[in-house]
């Protein structure tokens, strides 16, 4: 992982407060847990039926019946619970999930999220993403700032099929931390070595700047 992405993931870990129930989506979000202290009091949920995810295990120590939603072999911690898929999403929909971190294809300045379908190219299906995006108390996106072709992922409007409208509160990228506000994208922090001009250029919608010095990560 690039240094900027690693710092982004480490910065995102500071969003997790003690006592939270948290679901970390497949990909970059899953890496966030590596930046929490081993004894940090948090309950990690995975939608395939576990609250209280423990450390990831290598194949020689893995349990064939114990994976997270991304297919990684995980473990339990003292106090973990297993449950079926209906219970798992009852937890999500009823407001018991304090925070989710998800990947994104696109995020709009209104906080709309598109992350499950690129028509004609890649249609894996939504999995549990719609419920996580729509019902977690706080939705944070972790993503590269641009796609592989260099196009902005942060846009005035999403062009891809939506996952949920107005759900995203904050976006962490390899270039910046950006809040979704009633006035659109608002810069919170920028990555070391990234200029405001570069950031504005790579963002596909107006970006308001805070007054005074802008913190870096």
């Amino acid at each position, binding site marked *: 992982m690039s240094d900027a992405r690693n710092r982004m993931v480490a910065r995102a870990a500071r969003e997790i407060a003690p006592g939270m129930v948290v679901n970390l989506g497949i990909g970059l979000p899953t890496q966030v847990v590596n930046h929490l202290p081993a004894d940090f009091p948090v309950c990690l949920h*995975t*939608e*395939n*039926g*576990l609250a209280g995810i423990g450390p990831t295990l290598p*194949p020689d120590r*893995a*349990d*064939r*019946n*114990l*994976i*997270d*939603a991304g*297919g990684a*072999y995980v473990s339990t911690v003292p106090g973990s619970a*297993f*449950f*079926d*898929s*209906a219970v*798992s*999403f*009852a937890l*999500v*929909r009823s407001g018991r999930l304090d925070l989710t971190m998800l990947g994104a294809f696109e995020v709009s300045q209104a906080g*709309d999220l598109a992350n499950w379908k690129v028509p*004609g190219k*890649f*249609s*894996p*299906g*939504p*999995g*549990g993403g*719609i*419920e996580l995006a*729509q*019902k977690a108390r706080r939705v944070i996106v972790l993503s590269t700032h641009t796609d592989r072709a260099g196009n902005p992922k942060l846009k005035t409007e999403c062009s891809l*099929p*939506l*996952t*949920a*409208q107005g759900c995203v509160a904050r976006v962490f990228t390899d270039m910046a931390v950006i809040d979704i506000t009633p006035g659109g994208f608002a810069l919170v922090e920028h990555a070391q070595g990234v200029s405001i001009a570069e950031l504005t250029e790579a963002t596909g919608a107006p970006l308001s700047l805070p007054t005074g010095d802008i913190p870096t990560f």
Partner: protein
Amino acid sequence: MRLPDKTTTIEDALAGIADGATVMIGGFGVPGTPFTLIHELVRQGAQNLTVIKNDANETDMGVDHLLASGQVARLITTHIGLNPRAMALMNEGRLEVEFNAQGILAERVRAGGAGLGGILTDIAEDTELAEGKQTLAIDGKSYIVETALRADVALIHANRADAFGNLDYVATARNFNPLMAMAASRVIAEAEQVLPMGGLSPDDVHTPGPFVDHVVELTQISEEYAIVRR
């Protein structure tokens, strides 16, 4: 008084599944997928199936064998991203795929198993999954009507069963299994261990025996159930 014995051979358990049948299959990825029952369904060869499963497994595993044999006309699922064949068949128009939000698929199955007509939800209201679905207003809020799902057959993977069909599951192999075990006309459970009647404590039963029609003891665990090394 004693409870009836439902243990049988795998051939008899699956015999007579008709062309055009709807088949629920438990599992989320590898855990809880009834790999051995799926192989028997491939061997017996029922065609034009509607399969309801969370995902399409991976190449050469589980549901992929049914896709490779051309037995599946329609797949009701949540995510097929780990199965290139499923995505290719869908894109070529040779497999009809109906995507559901994962927890809504679970609730539709649960509703079917609970004798209900469907559920009301606001999930996916902002998405194309809501297109064409009926809505209802309750206390001024709009809800999508998601219809219940039932199947002709459910294929279940249990950890332990007793001869009556009481089942338990382990770890994340539970997932859709206990829901699907309530939602089909013929429920077939493969179990890693079949215990004598009374071998499962009544407090430890996850799926009560009256829901289950056939119990098949696995003489060996499918090699597809081994640790996947990526």
